[in-house]
């Protein structure tokens, strides 16, 4: 899993000839790594954490209030109308599913590609995936209007015939894709944490903590035979998660692409959506880790070089997204379909042109600054860019959904869409849910995969002697 790239061990070498550990600053010993990762779990949270938690929990409370009002009153509390039947909530759904994709990319695809820098950030990126998919799943659920009947989307023998679900519908494909994604991500995340739970169990003080970690560690003892099997399982799960993550956003894009609506009916959608998902996900990972490394004092493990590597992926996927925008416009012009043309002209010059400008500026133009190495290594610049991309990618989904719907084939159905306060409050609430979960995660679970970082450090230190 971790490539042996250092020179062969020479036990007579002097300490001065130690090779520099590339991805960990300051050559910590294995015990120091345990101490550093455990520190946030055993120390009292500082003021920064409490303030963040207060803000996040308040946002969550706003969301709970909005959703409660919507569910008890009805979907009429939203700004949807007969023409624009999907808008804010489906935008949020696609946005949050996309955020999750970076986590799987880091934990699975970069694992298969043997990228050593993923070790320090994989655990928190996987956590981000799970929380983002949870936020995403909430939106179709509340869009049903009667979420207590959500189980009707599952194919189970029922007393209505049984009337089965329609397996030809992309919306049902989504149900299966999202649930499989959430399940496999959870399994991958938990299996990855078992050895770390054992470390915590053996170091923890206090009976409650020791009991909790002991149950979670499933009696892990670090035996070489178990490790060997464990590595095989990790590679297998990574190999399964890789096509899975691509399929998830492909299927999400098919919700749109299989329709006949101009602006949606496009074969470019699956790759375009997958690249956009990874792009927005990396922006969110950067936002989160830049905050967390400072608040949790983990700069030693999440170094500027890590941020630089993530910025490069953001530049790459951002460029694919820019190319996809250009291809869409080229096809609208070249395809000679008047409806298609009208939709794209309306995107640039119509009433939602301001949203299009935000989307193009933030997603296609702003990331091009990352060609400059100095910007890739500047933490404030990266933070600002990551926020811009988050905003831009949210607007991308909004523009795709709303501009295609609000002016389709029949001019008599043309209408404008405006979100209601309840819809905005629900979006705020989803951010609240996401950050509340993440803040609890950094205090309750080891946010850096200790065993993976130790493997990296141990190989380098072994090679040095």
């Amino acid at each position: 899993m971790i490539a042996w790239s250092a020179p062969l061990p020479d036990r007579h070498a002097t300490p001065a000839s130690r090779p520099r550990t590339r991805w960990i600053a300051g050559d910590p010993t294995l015990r120091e790594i345990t101490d550093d990762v455990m520190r946030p779990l055993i120390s009292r949270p500082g003021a920064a954490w409490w303030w963040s938690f207060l803000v996040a929990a308040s946002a969550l409370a706003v969301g709970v209030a909005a959703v409660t009002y919507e569910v008890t009153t009805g979907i009429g509390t939203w700004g949807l109308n007969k023409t624009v039947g999907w808008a804010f909530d489906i935008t949020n759904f696609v946005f949050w599913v996309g955020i999750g994709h970076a986590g799987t990319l880091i934990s699975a695809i970069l694992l298969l590609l043997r990228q050593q820098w993923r070790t320090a950030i994989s655990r928190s990126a996987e956590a981000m995936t799970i929380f983002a998919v949870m936020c995403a799943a909430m939106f179709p659920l509340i869009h049903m209007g009667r979420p207590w009947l959500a189980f009707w989307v599952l194919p189970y023998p029922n007393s209505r015939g049984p009337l089965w679900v329609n397996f030809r519908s992309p919306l049902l494909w989504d149900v299966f894709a999202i649930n499989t994604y959430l399940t496999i991500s959870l399994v991958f995340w938990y299996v990855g944490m078992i050895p770390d739970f054992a470390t915590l169990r053996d170091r923890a003080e206090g009976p409650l903590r020791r009991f909790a970690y002991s149950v979670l560690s499933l009696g892990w003892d670090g035996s070489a035979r178990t490790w060997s099997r464990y590595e095989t399982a990790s590679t297998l799960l990574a190999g399964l998660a890789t096509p899975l993550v691509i399929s998830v956003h492909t299927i999400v894009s098919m919700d749109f692409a299989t329709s006949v609506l101009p602006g949606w009916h496009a074969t470019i959608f699956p790759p375009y959506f997958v690249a956009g998902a990874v792009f927005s996900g990396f922006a969110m990972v950067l936002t989160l880790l830049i905050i967390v490394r400072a608040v949790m004092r983990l700069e030693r493990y999440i170094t500027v070089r890590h941020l630089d590597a993530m910025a490069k992926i953001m530049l790459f996927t951002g460029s694919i997204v820019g190319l996809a925008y250009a291809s869409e416009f080229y096809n609208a012009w070249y395809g000679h379909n008047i409806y298609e043309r009208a939709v794209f002209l309306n995107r640039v010059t119509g009433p939602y042109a301001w949203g299009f400008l935000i989307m193009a500026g933030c997603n296609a133009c702003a990331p091009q600054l990352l060609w400059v190495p100095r910007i890739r290594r500047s933490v404030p610049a990266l933070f600002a860019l990551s926020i811009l991309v988050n905003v831009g990618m949210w607007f991308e989904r909004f523009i795709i959904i709303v501009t295609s719907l609000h002016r389709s084939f029949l001019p008599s159905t043309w209408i404008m869409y405006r979100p209601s306060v309840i819809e905005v409050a629900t979006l705020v609430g989803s951010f609240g849910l996401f950050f509340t979960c993440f803040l609890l995660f950094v205090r309750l679970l080891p946010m850096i995969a200790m065993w993976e970082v130790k493997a990296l450090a141990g190989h380098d230190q072994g090679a040095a002697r």
Partner: protein
Amino acid sequence: MKRDLVVGRFQQEPLVVDAVHALRSCGLRIADVYSPYPIHRLDAAMGIAPSRLPLVALAGGVAGLIAAVALELYTSVIDWPLNVGGKPDASLLAFVPIAFELTILGAGLATAAGLLIQSGLVPFRVATPLDRSATDDTFAVVVHCRDSALDRRHIEQLLLNYGALSVESRGLRR
């Protein structure tokens, strides 16, 4: 309790691999090696056979695929065919995404279950690590000394020669 095992504690990964090689070439049986992270060259040194988990994953994936296709065909073709937009009852192409998802789900769950069951990792299993630090920063090599060509003291000396920081003899763990 009879002291059947010799435990050598190491601080560095390369020394562990060398020691395991040497002990095995002396005809000694390695009970196990406990380490805070996986040591790749140890599989070959200890003669651990490659895991059969890929077969378990394959079986899980095939089961998921068959279950998905069977469910889709039974509900849409046999039990209650519904005409939706004039599409054929057995729209096989449209059945692909869900069949794919359930294949992955089956394979993933089978892999995880296979790992946990084969390794005996279950909730409330009480771990009896030889040393609490084996999950932190120590590598423990455990050697069987019963029925071996060398006696206990020789094995201990061998471990020390290969860089063990401390050695200890003890009974069977469980």
